[in-house]
């Protein structure tokens, strides 16, 4: 096998093209390519030394697949089938390891480290971040929250593990032998792999290109359809204030604003204010999850709220990031008792320009007189205390980010 020791200028120019091509594949919606999956998934099993199951079940959302695969696993286990948790793990592990892992190893051996790293950074990491990080993680998190509790509660089997899955299209930028990474060398750099390794690479790539999640078991394979819709903001985060941000053919999906998940009820309440930007602030401040609260604040007006509540500014403080002098402004406000609060309360408000998107944070604090006192209290706890001077001396970019 000829080792690749340098990328030509033409190959380097192809890096962003390849990145965009695989992001598009990873985020593809609409018709699922069942035919390609049915052709290449058996090859993955064969390459892993496993017999391909006769039962291939198509599901229309990861939620259904996670429930169904867990329950099927449980039933088969009770019937004395050899499908137990460990074998489920083993089958997924074999497909991942023997198919993707072997390909990854072969490519790594054939490519000089410097170029391996360059392609990993320019293609693989970006594709992984955009597809798996921004979209796949949201689905995984939601399925985890719902299925883990529900399935374990329903069948009382702590060993049931819905999450031994392969990510299909969401894993085109995955770590082991990711198709976006491997195909750059095989397709663009014309790297020649041995027949067996190339067959493994092709089979895994075709599977990833064709479907969404896959539950590979010894007695059955369950495979999920592509999403029917994926909606993102300009920064690539799942976002929609008109409908679910990601939706599957059976109607299951997730409500997100700028990458933050909401249940349907809260999402509907927040987006109902999208034109007026006049969401009641007492409702916003009651949202316990700080990420959700920050998103909801975009649908309210802090200045109007401060005016409406007759709040007074107690103190103001500005910190500057070491690197570029970017400011973060902190304000301490006192809100009197009235129609919103039953007693006088204090909030620390700060605009965080150091974050990727400008956000306003508003968090309750005890009745302090200065911003550093409030900041120090927020960072202290029962066993660790910092003083207001300590807080002032925390440099953005060195002690806080």
């Amino acid at each position: 096998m000829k080792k690749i020791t340098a990328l030509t200028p033409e190959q380097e120019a192809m890096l962003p093209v390849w990145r965009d091509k695989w992001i598009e594949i990873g985020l593809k919606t609409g018709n699922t390519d069942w035919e390609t999956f049915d052709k290449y998934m058996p090859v993955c099993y064969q390459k892993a030394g496993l017999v391909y199951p006769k039962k291939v079940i198509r599901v229309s959302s990861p939620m259904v697949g996670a429930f169904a695969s867990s329950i099927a696993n449980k039933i088969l286990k009770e019937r004395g089938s050899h499908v137990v948790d460990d074998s489920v793990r083993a089958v997924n592990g074999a497909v991942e390891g023997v198919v993707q892992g072997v390909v990854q190893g072969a490519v790594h051996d054939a490519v000089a480290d410097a170029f391996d790293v360059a392609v990993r950074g320019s293609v693989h990491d970006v594709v992984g971040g955009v597809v798996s990080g921004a979209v796949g993680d949201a689905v995984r998190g939601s399925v985890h929250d719902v299925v883990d509790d529900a399935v374990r509660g329903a069948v009382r089997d702590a060993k049931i593990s819905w999450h031994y899955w392969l990510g299909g299209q969401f894993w085109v930028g995955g770590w082991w032998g990711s198709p976006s990474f491997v195909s750059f060398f095989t397709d663009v750099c014309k790297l020649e792999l041995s027949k067996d390794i190339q067959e493994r690479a092709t089979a895994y790539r075709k599977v990833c290109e064709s479907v969404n999640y896959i539950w590979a078991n010894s007695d059955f394979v369950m495979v999920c359809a592509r999403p029917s819709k994926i909606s993102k903001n300009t920064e690539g985060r799942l976002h929609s204030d008109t409908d679910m941000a990601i939706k599957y053919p059976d109607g299951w999906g997730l409500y997100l604003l700028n990458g933050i998940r909401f249940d349907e009820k809260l999402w509907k309440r927040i987006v109902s204010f999208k034109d007026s930007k006049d969401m009641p602030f007492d409702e916003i401040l009651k949202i316990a999850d700080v990420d959700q609260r920050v998103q909801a604040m975009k649908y309210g007006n802090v200045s109007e709220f401060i005016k409406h509540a007759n709040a007074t500014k107690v103190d103001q403080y500005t910190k500057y990031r070491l690197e570029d002098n970017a400011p973060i402004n902190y304000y301490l406000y006192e809100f009197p008792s009235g129609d919103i609060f039953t007693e006088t309360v204090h909030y620390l408000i700060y605009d965080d320009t150091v974050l990727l998107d400008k956000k306003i944070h508003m968090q309750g604090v005890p009745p302090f007189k200065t911003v550093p006192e409030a900041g120090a209290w927020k960072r202290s706890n029962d066993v660790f205390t910092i003083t207001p001077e300590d807080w002032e001396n925390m440099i953005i970019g060195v002690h806080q980010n």
Partner: protein
Amino acid sequence: MKKLYAHGDINIEVYEGEVKGEKVNHAGKFVLAEGETSGHKHVITTPSIDDMDVIKSADGGMFLVLRVDGIVTHEEHAPMAIPKGTYRIDREREVDHFSKTTRKVLD
């Protein structure tokens, strides 16, 4: 100055006591906290597995022993270097004026 490194709502507090507890497996990379609704993670990374111990104490506290400098990353915050040392991991706190309670910031 008392040493504290703050990454988003996560406190990485210099700890001078003796750390007792169970070692947690990691691969030179460990998720300090994961956002419930964002899936975003504060991750500490060291050059090799042996450069870091993650220890969970009996009362649920989490500690880091860094033998070399580590890097903490997050999708929405700039990476930050954490010098070698021993640290306790916690979250910042806030007052919920509606329930009149103090709580760790939830994300």
